[in-house]
């Protein structure tokens, strides 16, 4: 009998522990769903509840304060969300707090977010309807994102084609790796440079002369008999001409190169892979590109300076006019 008694006790403990665990589990879930304890109800109205369901969490400034009790349809454009809120936040939550529906993380559950507004208001009471804010719908967001993606895809495709063309054309690479072009450009720039220095000197001289004339210094005859000045101007103009020729040559070279590239593309020649794999070529290309950049920058600086020099303004205007005529 004693033995039987202990068996019964063991069985009792076994069954009770099982039942207690079950009750505990259900209680914990119920507590998470705010089924026990003191709560109060609030409501909010939305045009679109974005799949919000009973049981979704409600957050106030990042703290879980309740759950959604249910969603009611009021009419075809208005849905009402009923919320069960923990009583603890009753003297914190105000009537003007804004309710919005968001997503927990990027792919998480829907949650209701209540955001406090920094202006005075009464505390929210049972069954109040809080103002709501239309939040960015993930769907819409994704739609925009997908459009952007499409655009990016198109651009990427174009880029790919361009790069493919560049890669497959041997002409461009030979052009880029040709150091003589860079040298030519450099030379041209140097000459333009020296020309402009000369012109500067000349202009200074002219400045002094005109000053002298204004001030009544010297004589006009002296001025006329001075042969230095026209000679200097002649020299400068010649230099500029030379530079122009060089530039024309350079541009025609470039034209030729581009033509070559075109024919290459049309003929489908060239070995992209070899080029791409050969890192020394890439380095070379990089270097030559750098050189070109440097050279052209210096060139354009000089050209700018030249443009601004009053003596050559007329020359450049003429150039522009002839361009327009063409």
């Amino acid at each position: 009998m004693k033995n039987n008694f202990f068996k019964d006790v063991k069985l009792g403990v076994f069954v009770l522990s099982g039942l207690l665990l079950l009750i505990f589990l259900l209680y914990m879930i119920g507590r998470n769903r705010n089924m026990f304890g003191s709560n109060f109800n609030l409501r909010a109205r939305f045009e679109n509840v974005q799949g919000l369901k009973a049981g979704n969490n409600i957050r106030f400034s990042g703290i879980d304060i309740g759950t959604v009790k249910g969603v009611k349809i009021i009419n075809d454009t208005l849905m009402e969300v009923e919320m069960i809120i923990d009583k603890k936040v009753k003297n914190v939550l105000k009537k003007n707090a804004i309710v919005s529906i968001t997503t927990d993380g990027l792919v998480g559950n829907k949650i209701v977010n209540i955001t406090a507004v920094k202006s005075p208001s009464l505390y929210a009471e049972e069954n109040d309807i809080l103002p709501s804010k239309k939040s960015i719908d993930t769907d819409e967001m994704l739609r925009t994102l997908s459009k952007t993606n499409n655009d990016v895809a198109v651009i990427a495709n174009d880029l790919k084609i361009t790069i493919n063309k560049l890669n497959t054309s041997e002409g461009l690479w030979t052009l880029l790796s040709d150091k003589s072009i860079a040298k030519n450009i450099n030379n041209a720039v140097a000459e333009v440079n020296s020309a402009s220095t000369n012109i500067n000197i000349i202009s200074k001289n002219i400045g002094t002369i005109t000053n002298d004339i204004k001030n009544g210094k010297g004589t006009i005859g002296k001025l006329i008999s001075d042969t230095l000045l026209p000679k200097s101007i002649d020299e400068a103009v010649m230099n500029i001409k030379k530079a122009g020729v060089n530039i024309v040559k350079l541009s025609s070279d470039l034209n030729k190169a581009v033509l070559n590239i075109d024919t290459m593309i049309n003929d489908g020649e060239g070995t992209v892979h070899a080029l791409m794999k050969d890192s020394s070529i890439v380095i070379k290309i990089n270097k030559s590109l750098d050189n070109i950049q440097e050279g052209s920058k210096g060139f354009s600086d000089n050209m700018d300076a030249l443009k601004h020099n009053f003596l050559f303004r007329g020359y450049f205007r003429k150039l522009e006019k002839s361009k327009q005529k063409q």
Partner: protein
Amino acid sequence: MKNTSSINIFLKEVGDTSGFGWRFLTQWFRPRYEIKEFIKQCYIIGYKSLPLIGLTGFIMGLVLTMQLRPTMVDYGVESQIPAIVGIAIIREIGPVITALIFAGKIGSSIGAELGSMKVTEQIDAMEVSGTNPFKYLVVSRILATTFMLPILVILSDTISLYGAYLGVNIRNVTSFQLFWIQVFDSLSFNDVLPAFIKTYFFGFVVGLIGCYKGYNSNKGTEGVGKSANSAVVVSSVLIFIIDLLAVQITDLLGFN
């Protein structure tokens, strides 16, 4: 008996088992109540199975966590391990693994016990001694398995989750409290109740098949072994079938 094509044998078996189950359903609530025997069987079937089921549950929780970790880390959701393991154990793995172990231990022992009782005329002897052997042996055992398995599943779930907690802590540190909060947060009644209710059916099936196979055992010791074996096989298969039905029913009712 001449038509012994396997499909007919199968259909006859299904019919007989259903008839046996129907007999149980129409008998169990009628007197005489074999309460003492029921409690004795609860002790043997429930309490005595706890160590085995606790051990398998613990290992299951631990292993599941460790197996899930690499994938979860790959997806960068390592912190969700307690939630995922909790749902997996409560909803599916706990009930099914426990029921299978239970079928292996209890189904076979009931099949063998009743089988040998049948073969050695003990069942007849009971009937002669003013006892309805169906009530004394079958009803008490089926009720015991039906009511003990859910309790075993709850205990096994708890032990499994503790195993999962240790599994999380092998590579990472989670406080005991945070682990349980994460588990409970991820669960809802829709996870717990269908899983809990289906364990009653698992328990019922293990008891029913064990008793049926034993009660209809053939003469001879070979018959006893066959009953024990087929009790385990049939009840294991039925557990999966019930599991399938349960998930579809809960889905239909919208509790999933």
